[in-house]
């Protein structure tokens, strides 16, 4: 064999949106070095622009920000901003990547992000981040929480770049000497083992559709503009107003499918996310106003197919009073009455044409593939689909046509954040699979000097007070605060710093620690959230325990909010500093805890998700126990014959089962159930009904789901009525029942979207359309009817819907309160449905009635596992993830993950993707040599503990339990997250969190 280049234990991630960030973190945590290449000057992608996120209404920035910080600070993620990939050469395991890096003109290592430069910069530029709703300067930071927390120069607009002598004001004010207008573009070359592409999406350019009036009518805006409008960090501080005239809108309309489901515009696909975001915007807008706000959404089909989305839609309609108007919009015009209002002319479902006036019209823009990728794809030979989205090979979830290159997020099709995050973890898993044997070869670990033992020493606190350029120093009298600090007990040294966070200051702090024998350090500057880890690093480098550090925020919480009252601000700064000093005197070193780690995994459920997960883990070199309740592997997929894209599933499944059975790393047990579970992450012990006890480090739950057995529509009473899964085998067998049928009827939402199961089963619309086409294929003369409530053929499945209509499948909408009626006839059944367009009942004598039955969880199994592993279920009995948006396959319980139908309805491709995601997440745990816990955990004073168990009840991490014999609470440090819920619940003051004890808090209060 010819010499193959050595594998490289690094991965290139292209695009630093949420997908890129997630993939990078998963890989870096799993033992791979990551190059994260981002075109813009900061990571974050689209999420920072969004206001709230559906369906939880969490603040987008708030949930993203911790990931930004983690990714930005990760030792094994090298973020390369202002850069694009020019070329990728090589093969899986060893690629050579060429990067074009644009000059930023600001050295991010020196820049402290203080913003003085932007204050001085005379050039105003439309702020792209805010959708041009306001201005920024030519030197700018993309958004407040951006990483790197550094400014960049807009080279096209900077005066000095155009004319070197023209300006230079920023240079004068930058006391960190970070700006260099002579910086040059660079070309970088990197060696990596695999590549993940997650360049995200672009929003549809609506100016092509003149009839919506965008650009002409000032009060027609895009959905992204509306997000910025709602955002507290947006151009209007979250005040809902019309950008054009500042008036508060009383009536707002959302127009759906702008740039989606529109084949005249080569945008025949559904953008998948617009229905939900429009509902969210309408609901949030209502919450923003103190007056009653009228909101209306003009739509064709409401596609709220995701987990918990249907309930969100129901609440918006029934509780929030958002109006939903099923319609076709013709045009938006001015009302021509000087109000600036807009008139929408549209037709109702029954064809009547109506107009209605609105103060503001929001266009729900569709998603487009990133334009820049076409060229690169061409160069790499990457297959794109007809819309220029990346074409993923069937049933790979995140594959591309090029081995070793993977895709995640909207580049392979429009998708929302949870699915994007899921794909990111899946891509991380797939990209690492080939690199398992070089895991850990390129990652770095930091070495620190031995820690000084400061126990019992007299307190010697060093206090560093930051000017933050002029941010603090311009308001607070910093020298006065320093002088004051020197008078406080235990303070051995106090000094002021221009930028406490700059590299040279860090060196000065270390020097001071050494010179003055400091054993506590207090920094008064900005937000601990962004800067505390950095200062703690400095302490560690100086040989002090990181927890001997205390920080107080005299910028955001003092100088910024009291800008007009410098004296009071100074007094407050003194108080804040005093509190920090008093607390610091009580700080004690906290040692991390290290526990042994079992590197084996348990996968529960032997369906496609479970098998895929097992194989994924095995490829990464981990031993897997796969347990299946039934006698054979394959799960519900054994009943499937065709994939959504026509794949031959029986052979796919049999290959999969063969592969897993042949894998020496995987021990398969069928016909067994879980009977008991003990332990926690890294140290689980699971007992099977066979009596075997499996020790393992992580668990992946993939218990699947089943098809609802309908009680309606004569199911089980009439042989002509069947579920889609039953119909599937007739179709596969080309059964005469199908080939001879005259009329075939599909009924949608059987057991879904009703009172008992208020969720959408997601896949049935597509499946029905697929089968309808199959019927047409086998029996072109048959009349095929699909009776539906909303057709939810999201993404590219929309194409299939169009094809079905083109091929004569008849779609008839019914409403929930007027369901079709199925009555038994002689050989056939009579189906009666009221047509919405005609408004009259239609009778169909159907030879086959295919019921799109709901996907229902196995409640018994799930609730048992829920108790065993201390993981929650939602009301329907599906497993509830740790966070709907950003932790879609994780649980609050560490080391337990999920995938597949156990999480909620989804199609096979999506299940595979999610299974891989679970592997990606599980590998971040398995890659650890041992479980090390930061140590800022809760601890119990057994003398004070009364054993009442309230801490146990409130602990979200299930880390506290009352010892049955000693009757005192016991903390499992491996599980404790240090959130403090227990400490604040404990009446006896018996449980405290290290680094934030009652005593420390009272010391702070008493300092005042």
């Amino acid at each position, binding site marked *: 064999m010819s010499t193959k280049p050595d594998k490289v234990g690094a991965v290139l991630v292209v695009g630093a949106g949420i997908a890129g960030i997630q993939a990078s973190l998963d890989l870096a945590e799993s033992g791979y070095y990551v190059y994260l290449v981002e075109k813009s000057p900061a990571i974050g992608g689209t999420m920072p622009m969004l206001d709230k996120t559906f369906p939880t209404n969490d603040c987008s920035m708030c949930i993203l920000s911790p990931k930004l910080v983690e990714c930005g600070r990760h030792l094994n993620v090298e973020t390369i901003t202002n850069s694009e990939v020019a070329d990728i050469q090589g093969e899986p395991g060893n690629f050579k990547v060429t990067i074009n890096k644009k000059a930023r003109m600001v050295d991010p290592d020196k820049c402290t992000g203080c913003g003085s430069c932007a204050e001085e910069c005379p050039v105003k530029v439309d702020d792209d981040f805010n959708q041009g709703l306001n201005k920024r300067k030519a030197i700018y930071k993309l958004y407040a929480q951006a990483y790197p927390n550094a400014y960049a120069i807009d080279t096209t607009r900077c005066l000095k770049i155009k004319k070197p002598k023209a300006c230079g004001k920023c240079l004068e004010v930058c006391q960190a000497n970070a700006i260099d207008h002579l910086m040059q573009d660079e070309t970088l070359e990197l060696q990596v083992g695999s590549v993940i592409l997650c360049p995200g999406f672009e929003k549809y350019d609506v100016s092509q559709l003149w009839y919506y009036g965008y650009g002409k009518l000032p009060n027609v805006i895009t959905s992204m503009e509306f997000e910025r409008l709602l955002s507290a960090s947006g151009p209007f501080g979250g005040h809902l107003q019309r950008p054009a005239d500042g008036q508060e809108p009383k009536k707002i309309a959302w127009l759906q499918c702008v740039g989606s489901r529109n084949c005249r515009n080569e945008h025949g696909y559904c953008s998948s996310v617009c229905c939900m975001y429009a509902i969210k915007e309408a609901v949030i807008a209502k919450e923003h106003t103190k007056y009653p706000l009228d909101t209306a959404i003009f739509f064709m089909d409401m596609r709220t197919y995701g987990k918990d989305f249907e309930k969100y839609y129901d609440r918006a309609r029934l509780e929030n009073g958002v109006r939903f108007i099923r319609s076709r919009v013709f045009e938006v015009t001015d009302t021509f009455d000087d109000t600036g209002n807009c008139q929408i002319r549209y037709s109702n479902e029954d064809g009547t044409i109506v107009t209605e006036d609105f103060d503001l019209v929001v266009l729900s823009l569709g998603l487009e593939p990133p334009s820049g990728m076409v060229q690169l794809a061409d160069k790499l030979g990457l297959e794109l689909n007809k819309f220029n989205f990346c074409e993923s090979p069937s049933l790979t979830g995140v594959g591309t046509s090029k081995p070793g290159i993977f895709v995640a997020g909207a580049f392979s099709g429009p998708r929302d954040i949870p699915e994007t995050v899921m794909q990111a973890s899946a891509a991380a898993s797939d990209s690492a699979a080939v690199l398992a044997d070089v895991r850990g070869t390129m990652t770095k670990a930091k070495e620190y000097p031995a820690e000084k*033992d400061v*126990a*019992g*020493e*007299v*307190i010697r606190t060093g206090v560093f007070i930051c000017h933050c350029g002029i941010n603090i120093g311009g308001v607070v009298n910093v020298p006065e605060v320093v002088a004051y600090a020197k008078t406080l007990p235990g303070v051995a040294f106090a000094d002021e710093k221009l930028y406490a966070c700059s590299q040279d200051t860090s060196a000065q702090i270390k020097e001071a620690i050494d010179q003055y024998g400091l054993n506590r350090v207090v920094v008064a500057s900005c937000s601990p959230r962004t800067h505390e880890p950095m200062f703690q690093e400095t302490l560690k480098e100086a040989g002090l325990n990181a927890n001997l550090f205390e920080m107080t925020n005299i910028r955001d919480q003092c100088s910024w909010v009291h800008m007009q009252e410098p004296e009071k601000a100074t007094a407050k700064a003194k108080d804040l500093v005093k509190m920090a000093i008093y607390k610091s*005197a009580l700080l004690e070193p906290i040692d991390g805890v290290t526990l042994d780690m079992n590197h084996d995994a348990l996968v529960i459920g032997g369906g496609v998700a479970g098998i895929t997960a097992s194989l994924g883990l095995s490829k990464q070199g981990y031993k897997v126990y796969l347990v299946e309740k039934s006698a054979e592997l394959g799960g519900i997929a054994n009943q499937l014959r065709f994939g959504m894209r026509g794949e031959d599933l029986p052979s796919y499944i049999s290959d999969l089962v063969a592969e897993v059975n042949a894998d020496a790393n995987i021990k398969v047990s069928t016909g067994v159930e879980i009977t008991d579970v003990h332990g926690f992450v890294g140290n689980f012990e699971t007992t099977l009904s066979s009596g075997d006890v499996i020790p393992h480090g992580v668990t992946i739950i993939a218990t699947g789901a089943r098809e609802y057995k309908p009680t309606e529509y004569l199911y089980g009473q009439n042989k002509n009525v069947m579920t889609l899964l039953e119909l599937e085998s007739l179709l596969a067998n080309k059964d005469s029942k199908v080939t001879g049928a005259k009329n075939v009827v599909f009924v949608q939402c059987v057991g879904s979207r009703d009172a008992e199961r208020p969720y959408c089963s997601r896949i049935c619309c597509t499946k029905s359309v697929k089968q309808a086409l199959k019927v047409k294929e086998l029996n072109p003369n048959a009349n095929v009817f699909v009776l539906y409530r909303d057709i939810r053929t999201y993404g590219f499945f929309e194409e299939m819907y169009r094809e079905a209509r083109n091929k004569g499948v008849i779609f008839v909408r019914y409403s929930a309160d007027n369901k079709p009626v199925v009555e038994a006839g002689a050989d056939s059944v009579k189906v009666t449905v009221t047509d919405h367009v005609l408004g009259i009942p239609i009778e169909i004598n159907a030879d086959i009635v295919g019921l799109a039955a709901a996907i229902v969880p196995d409640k018994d199994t799930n609730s048992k596992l829920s108790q065993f592993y201390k993981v929650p279920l939602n009301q329907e009995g599906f497993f509830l993830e740790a966070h709907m948006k950003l932790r879609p396959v994780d649980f609050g319980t560490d080391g337990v993950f999920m995938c597949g139908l156990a999480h909620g309805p989804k199609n096979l491709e999506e299940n595979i993707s999610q299974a891989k995601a679970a592997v990606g997440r599980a590998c971040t745990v398995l890659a650890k040599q041992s479980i090390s816990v930061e140590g800022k955990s809760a601890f119990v004073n057994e003398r004070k503990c009364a054993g009442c168990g309230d801490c146990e009840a409130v602990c979200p991490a299930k880390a506290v339990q009352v010892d049955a014999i000693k009757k005192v609470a016991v903390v499992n440090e491996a599980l404790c997250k240090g959130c403090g819920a227990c400490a604040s619940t404990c009446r006896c003051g018996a449980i405290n969190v290290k680094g934030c004890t009652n005593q420390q808090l009272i010391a702070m209060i008493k300092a005042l």
Partner: protein
Amino acid sequence: MMKNPYLPLPMKLVKNFTETEDKLIHTFTLQFLSEEDEKSFPYMPGQFAELCVFGKGEAPFGIASSPTEPGFLKFSVAKVGTVSTALHMMEEGSIVGVRGPLGNYYPVDQFKGKNVVIIGGGFAFTTLRSLATYMMHPDRRGDFGKITVIYGARNPGLLLYKDELAAWEASPDIDLITTVDREAEGWNGRVGFIPAVTGEVAPSAENAHAIICGPPVMIKFTMPVLEKLGFTPETTIMSLENRMKCGIGMCGRCNVGGKYVCKDGPIFTRAQLNELPNEY
């Protein structure tokens, strides 16, 4: 005008010394601010004083220095409560309040012409150091017979006053036996618990008094050894350590039976304690 027994005497902390390896015991050297102050504080070995950290409160500690060491007071304090913790954190040069001397003292007059066996365990060695230093003073050494000191700690790092122990080791005036509970690196001395070591050393009870201070278990197991050696309840002397506040027999918490440890103690003979309930 009667003397106000609640008012502390301000003294200057001139040394805050970390006495033990576990850093939990510090020895504080306090300097009188004036000669009058020093005159107002006549004390004897075995007495204690209330030390106060202004702003935190006061707590009683046995005086570790001897009246034969003028100008200063010494206290060795374990970090247990609010006051001791605050003391440990104090910078040299600070002002500390001292209220005393309080309580009775070792009956040194009775020891005259007799042999004295001092047995100490752990950090309860403070007033024993005072006693030994007092008796070893050249002006007084002749008053007493043989002085034997048996002193032990869990490990060598926890022994107090290591420099002085070394000096005593070399001195013909005193017979020092130090011991640690378990073998330890760098320790060439005796290994064993105090009761056992006391039995091995077997100091004669003939014309002798034994003074014993230490943790309750040590006392419990050493008592029978002393009895066996012939020490009577009358010649066995202990120092009690009940919780105290006022130090002057008023606040009510340190009583053992009708006796107040602060006022009537802390030094009791075994015979006296045998008459009292065991509430200590």
